[in-house]
């Protein structure tokens, strides 16, 4: 058996890419980047509206644009990319997908597309301008929520496919550690599954209310269930980006990975701590005592701890690699990094962006500081820095080698240069936009509202100079979006044929042995469930047990 496995592994390595698995990733990436294109256009329209330069037509108003932008970029672009990326990673590191798993992930693909159409039609018809956060009392057409159910079920298919794939590999490789990229995939899919359970419950509460079978809904309960998912979701994309930083970037710069144990501990910590962290989105919500909110701040800040570990690990890798290449002085190693390589530059800027992004996140998590920035454009600036820079740029960096790899093509020096320019344009556009959003948010400009001067109120007029930068940033960004989408499809269909490397970093020669407890996922999940239970039992018991009469639906458009 062991010999047969070895032969299979060798054969896989020798034959390289599995065509059928590559088709899965290519399809997922195609949807992902088409979503980026449309989402980007909607983003530009919003930016121009907020800058006071564009009045959106009544047949597709600001709130429809906002909902479409959020849904396309936060749900479609990211989830399709992450699934395509991790399935390519599992196919590569686990010796090809098993046929059953392939079938599951295709079914998931179909369900998500159908679900997306179900959700998109009401938005286009103007019956679902509820924004991607979609919690009550705003109410959309029931078909919007039914579409969301299908999307969640599609994600679960992909998650269970991954679990079966990983379990199958482990059965055939007893006592071995799961390859690190697949370990990341497992963490991501565990979070995706458990994180989407609360939102599934929420949607099943909303559907009868949206059909009018029940008159009222418990708003606080549904908000809580939404954020248990909403915050986990953004951290899932972050964990996906982390996988590229820990595993891919060291290889691209010609170094070795940082401690394997630390990497796995970071993943486990993020899986355990993430879901209750969502409560900090409700830090100014009513119905919860100060002391409970205060304790939740600790819960949320705990998520920052693995991020600090990551920052240390990454800079340590850069320094070691730079010194091995002959760098001198305290910061000489920076010069030795391959800045001209798009596969490095994009994730590197993503990492740098996460320093202010993480700090801004800590501001929002903190009870008192949150009250200053709550529901202002600061928050929008924050998630454009985290998702728009940290996550998106890492995904772009991955696309420059993964898309040619699965398409059996190569990244030419010209396309690499094109990627570098795209990255720089994106960085300029997003920085202009998110910095001005942060600043104008501090001055009080609200989010989730179309342009208004509030009857030429002096304060509101004072926001205008900052809001102009939203328009400028958005315009630069749309150029970068078009370039990025072009790059992906060029690399998929037009680039010269050849073999691109799947860069997976190796551990140091003298690395210490990773303890086996890191592989015990059922124990990790038990601890995660206990932490989730502890995090949510107080608000949930209060919101259910002492609920107000409930809210009728509101449609403000």
């Amino acid at each position, binding site marked *: 058996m062991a010999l047969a496995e070895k032969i299979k592994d060798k054969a896989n390595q020798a034959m390289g890419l599995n065509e059928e698995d590559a088709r899965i990733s290519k399809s997922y990436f195609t949807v992902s980047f088409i979503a980026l294109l449309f989402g980007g256009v909607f983003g530009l329209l919003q930016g121009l509206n907020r800058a006071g330069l564009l009045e959106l037509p009544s047949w597709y108003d600001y709130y429809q644009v906002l909902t479409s932008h959020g849904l396309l970029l936060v749900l479609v672009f990211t989830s399709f990319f992450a699934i395509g990326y991790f399935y390519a990673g599992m196919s590569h590191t686990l010796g090809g997908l098993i046929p059953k798993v392939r079938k599951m992930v295709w079914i998931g693909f179909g369900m998500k597309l159908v679900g997306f159409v179900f959700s998109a039609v009401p938005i286009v018809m103007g019956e679902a301008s509820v924004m991607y956060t979609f919690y009550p009392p705003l109410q959309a057409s029931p078909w919007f929520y039914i579409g969301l159910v299908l999307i969640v079920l599609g994600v679960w298919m992909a998650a269970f496919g991954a679990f079966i794939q990983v*379990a199958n590999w482990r059965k055939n490789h*007893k006592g071995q550690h799961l390859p690190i990229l697949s370990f990341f995939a497992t963490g991501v899919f565990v979070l995706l599954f458990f994180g989407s359970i609360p939102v599934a419950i929420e949607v099943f509460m909303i559907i009868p209310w949206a059909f009018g079978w029940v008159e009222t809904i418990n708003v606080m309960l549904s908000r809580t269930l939404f954020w248990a998912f909403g915050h986990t979701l953004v951290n899932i994309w972050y964990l996906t980006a982390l996988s590229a930083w820990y595993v891919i970037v060291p290889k691209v710069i010609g170094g070795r990975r940082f401690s394997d144990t630390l990497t796995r501990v970071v993943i486990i910590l993020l899986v355990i701590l993430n879901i209750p962290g969502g409560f900090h989105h409700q830090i100014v919500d009513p119905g919860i005592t100060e*002391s*409970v909110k205060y304790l939740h701040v600790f819960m949320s800040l705990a998520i920052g701890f693995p991020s600090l570990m990551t920052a240390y690990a990454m800079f340590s890798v850069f320094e070691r690699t730079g010194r091995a290449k002959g760098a001198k002085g305290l910061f000489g190693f920076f010069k030795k990094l391959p800045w001209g390589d798009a596969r490095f530059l994009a994730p590197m800027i993503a990492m740098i962006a996460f320093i202010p992004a993480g700090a801004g996140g800590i501001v929002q998590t903190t009870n008192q500081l949150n009250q200053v920035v709550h529901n202002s454009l600061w928050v929008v600036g924050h998630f454009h820095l985290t998702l728009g820079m940290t996550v998106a740029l890492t995904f772009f960096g991955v696309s420059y080698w993964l898309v040619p790899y699965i398409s059996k093509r190569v990244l030419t020096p010209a396309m690499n240069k094109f990627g570098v320019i795209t990255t720089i344009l994106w960085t300029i556009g997003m920085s202009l936009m998110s910095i001005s959003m942060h600043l104008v948010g501090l001055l009080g400009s609200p989010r989730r509202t179309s342009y208004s001067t509030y009857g030429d109120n002096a304060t509101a007029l004072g926001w205008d100079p900052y809001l102009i930068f939203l328009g400028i940033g958005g315009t630069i960004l749309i150029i970068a979006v078009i370039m990025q989408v072009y790059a992906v499809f060029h690399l998929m269909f037009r680039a010269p044929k050849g073999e691109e490397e799947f860069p997976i970093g190796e551990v140091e020669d003298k690395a210490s042995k990773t303890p086996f407890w890191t592989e015990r996922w059922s124990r990790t999940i038990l601890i995660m*469930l206990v932490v989730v*239970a502890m995090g949510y039992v*107080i608000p949930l*018991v209060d919101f259910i*047990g*002492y609920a107000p009469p409930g809210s009728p639906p509101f449609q403000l458009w």
Partner: protein
Amino acid sequence: MTQVIAGLVFYLFLMLPPVVELLESIMIIHMHMQMPLLVVAGFLMAPLFQKKFPSFFAKYNMNGIPGILLFMIIMFFWNIPRAMDEALTIPLVEIFKFISLPFLAGVPLRDSWNKLTTKWKNGTLLMFLIVYTGTGILYIASPVQLCNNYLVKEQITLGWGFITVAAAILIYLIQLFFVNPSDYE
């Protein structure tokens, strides 16, 4: 050694008056956060004692069973409403809480867990499942205040806390029926 220092610092942190006051001001946080965190502090400090008194642990906790029994006795003692109430009103009982949970529950748990057979490990979890379900029902269903220091409203929240932890343990035990760890290790 890093772990021992971390455990000690954590233990001292949990003893700080504002921390004690905050954690004890909410019933469920008192039982399901402060108390387990004290056990964690002891768990982290355990190697110090294991190194200092190896023969003691070898002699009295050879197969891990005495240790895990002591752990369970201490844990279940602190599930009694009266015990928690007295910790708040009688300083001596509060001191006992701060000593018993880390040193009589955390330390023996660490020493015992790896010595135990799988049957005993799962048996321990089963025991917690049963006790937590029972205590959970007691706290939820009780028509009267069980603790002088906490309201009935908080009591119900605590009850659900027990039930949700029990549910998490139940999910873990159920998956053991379908997934055999020895297939993978």
